[in-house]
């Protein structure tokens, strides 16, 4: 053998082809089984945040469009809710299967419109979307076994407003249980990510779903407000910021509308001195950099036991150096683009606040593309609970690292937030997992793992992270007339 020489294994570009998806120049609303233009003709553009390329033009729904959609849903409700559950279930099974068949197309579309890596849309988002429809399809004819009485009835028409971070997945989380329980829906995707919902309308068509059962209207915050404020809906389901969630909660007071909210978070990811270190570092990285940190349940506060802080930090920095930031359609990209200029500005401002307040900022050296919205995965150390970056939801790839001395202190710091969506616990000791988990004020606790989702597993928050659960048997409650 020749003498050893220094090597590097540079990955060549591995682009997923865009040819699988065919984006039309413009889309209208999908109301009562067909596409139509906005009543007042207003439109807006949706771009690819990794390149700022315009992908398509979509309609801005005004009050007239919202009204028409709600009426269509109301009209369809009579027939849909009267169908035997087994028949509703078979429609949902069809939808699930079609999504599986068209997975690649939807994955590419989602990566283009949202900015997240194709590896994630392909391996995480789309499988979960199909799985949610499969799961709730099976409940449609088994509602009497769900623990809500012998014959639980649907609520009626659900108005659903979803965010931009997991567009199609959030659609699945909302539409699948609503339909399984016998409701009809009007859904508004986020203004920066309308396309996968509009393509979903085509899946609805292919599945032969009766007209008006699913209606998709596009627009910005004003459309969302008009929808949730419409007197003709029976149920409001919202996933988004805590601020807007509170506004919605105020607006439904005095009405008959039932409400579930899935809002922000500032999750603590707690690493104890007996954690499996390499796996914990993977969990930390996954917890905050998966989906560019645009995750309500992101592990954005790393709480490390002080005795192992140095070791964990060194390991974490070393791991962060291998993260690949770049073209979302490259199959080797780990971190994609920030979803919008607005979000990028917010992340940038908070990161600057972190520095201004005395935390130490570090990021791996990686080249960023010139066009599009990008932010390096960033780590702040020397952070304490008093810092803004430990309190406010950044919703970006920014991790704040704090330390603690004892399990009791870890729990106190973890709970010291108005939020309560999720938390992580890393330790080899089972009894510590259970003891800490029982004391954490969070709706989802991950032990020795993070950011794991399953349609069978209820998801939702405590405190200002919202109320109600999505997923599991519990997720049916939001769409049944049971309280």
């Amino acid at each position, binding site marked *: *053998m020749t003498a050893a020489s220094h090597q590097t294994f540079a*990955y060549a570009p*591995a682009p997923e082809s865009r040819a699988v998806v065919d984006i039309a120049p413009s889309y209208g609303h999908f109301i009562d089984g067909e596409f139509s233009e906005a009543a007042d003709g207003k439109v807006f553009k949706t771009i690819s945040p990794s390149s700022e390329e315009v992908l398509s033009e979509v309609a801005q729904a005004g009050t007239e469009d919202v009204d028409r959609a709600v009426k269509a849903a109301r009209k369809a409700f009579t027939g849909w809710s009267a169908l035997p559950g087994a028949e509703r279930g078979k429609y949902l099974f069809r939808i699930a299967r079609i999504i599986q068949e068209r997975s690649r197309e939807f994955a590419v579309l989602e990566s283009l419109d949202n900015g997240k890596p194709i590896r994630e849309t392909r391996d995480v988002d789309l499988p979960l979307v199909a799985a949610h429809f499969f799961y709730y399809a099976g409940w449609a004819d088994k509602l009497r076994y769900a623990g809500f009485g012998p014959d639980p009835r649907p609520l009626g028409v659900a108005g659903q407003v979803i965010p931009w971070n997991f567009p199609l997945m959030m659609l699945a989380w909302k539409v699948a249980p609503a339909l399984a329980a016998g409701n009809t829906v009007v859904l508004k995707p986020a203004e920066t990510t309308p396309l996968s919902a509009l393509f979903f309308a085509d899946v609805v068509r292919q599945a032969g779903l009766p007209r008006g059962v699913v209606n998709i209207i596009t627009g910005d915050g004003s459309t969302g407000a008009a929808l949730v404020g419409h007197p003709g809906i029976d149920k409001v389901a919202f996933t988004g910021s805590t601020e807007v969630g509170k506004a919605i909660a105020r607006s439904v007071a005095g009405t008959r509308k039932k409400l579930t909210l899935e809002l922000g978070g500032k999750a603590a990811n707690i690493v104890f001195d007996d954690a*499996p*270190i*390499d796996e914990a570092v*993977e969990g930390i990285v996954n917890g905050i950099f998966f989906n560019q940190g645009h995750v309500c349940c992101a592990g954005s506060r790393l709480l490390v036991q002080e005795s192992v802080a140095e070791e964990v930090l060194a390991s974490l920095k070393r791991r962060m150096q291998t993260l690949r930031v770049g073209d979302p359609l490259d199959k080797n990209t780990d971190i994609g683009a920030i979803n919008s200029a607005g979000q990028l500005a917010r992340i940038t401002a908070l990161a600057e606040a972190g520095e201004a307040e005395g935390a130490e900022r570090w990021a791996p050296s990686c080249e960023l593309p010139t066009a599009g919205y990008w932010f390096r995965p960033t780590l702040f150390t020397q952070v304490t609970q008093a810092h803004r970056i430990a309190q406010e939801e950044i919703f970006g790839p920014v991790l704040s690292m704090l330390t603690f001395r004892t399990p009791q202190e870890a729990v106190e710091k973890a709970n010291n937030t108005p939020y309560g969506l999720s938390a992580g616990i890393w330790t080899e000791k089972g009894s510590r997992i259970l003891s800490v988990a029982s004391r954490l004020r969070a709706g989802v606790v991950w032990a020795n793992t993070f950011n794991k989702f399953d349609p069978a597993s209820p998801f939702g928050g405590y405190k200002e992270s919202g109320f109600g659960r999505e997923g599991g048997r519990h997720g049916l409650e939001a769409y049944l007339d049971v309280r």
Partner: protein
Amino acid sequence: MSSLPPVPAFDPEAADRLASMADVTASDSALRRFLHGLPGVDAVGLEARAAALGTRSIKTTAKAYAIDLAISMIDLTTLEGADTPGKVRALCAKGTRPDPTDRAAPQVAAICVYPDMVRTAKEALQGTTINVASVATAFPAGRASLRVKLADTADAVAAGADEIDMVIDRGAFLSGRYLSVFEEIRAVRLACVRPDGSAAHLKVIFENGELSTYDNIRRASWLAMLAGAGFIKTSTGKVAVNATLPGTLLMLEAVRDFRDMVGVQVGVKPAGGIRTTKDAVKYLVAVSETLGGDWLDPHWFRFGASSLLNDLLMQRQKLSTGRYSGPDYVTVD
């Protein structure tokens, strides 16, 4: 200790650092406390990380690089009861010129045989830079007295082996006699020393399939490295479960941590069950993302394989011709 070859070092302070850890291996209980005090391994997390590394998409130039690198890292192996000088010579010819239609194809790193085939292999490989690796210590089971195992090693070294692949005593390991395992490795290292003071390079096989748990694999890694292993190796290739990506990833993490702590660089060799180019590339990705470039070299990473070579050659042919290849276009050895 002074008669053992010098510690293969990365860092000038390595020898001192190792010496300062002598108390860890002073007694069975001290060694047990150390090994059992290493961080635990979460199996689900480890396997998920390995699977994620396996999703890297290695195309075009990166693939060409990986294929050639993988070929150059192969310990081309025949370890059968039916081995004959003819078979060994054929294998050596294959390792020297893997692709008769393309002289640019790299040579393998070594030919791996039983001790009584070493001389034949050495003769066949004269004039090349390909090493002869010999298994030893009553491979594969390792169930013989220390005297027999050391004699086995000495025979292979005397016959000219450049590298020795020994097996640890799994029975001793699983019954907690760590110091006995440690001392056996040291004894074999001593048996690798030649009259002129040079030494055959020692690889230590754990037989991960028999060690069974990831915690055991981590402990065996540290034990072997403290004992002076030049390479740590996953398996003999002779049992049901041989090299796996998670098991190898764990060993890559161990050599990384060992170098960080002690300053000594140890190589890693997965063996058995790696049959396709796709598999081999996943291992190289794991090496690259866990360890960076320092181990991406046949001096520090090897594949113990036989049929892998032909699959690499067929993939290499596809890259250059654009056509899928077939068994008619690679040689049997």
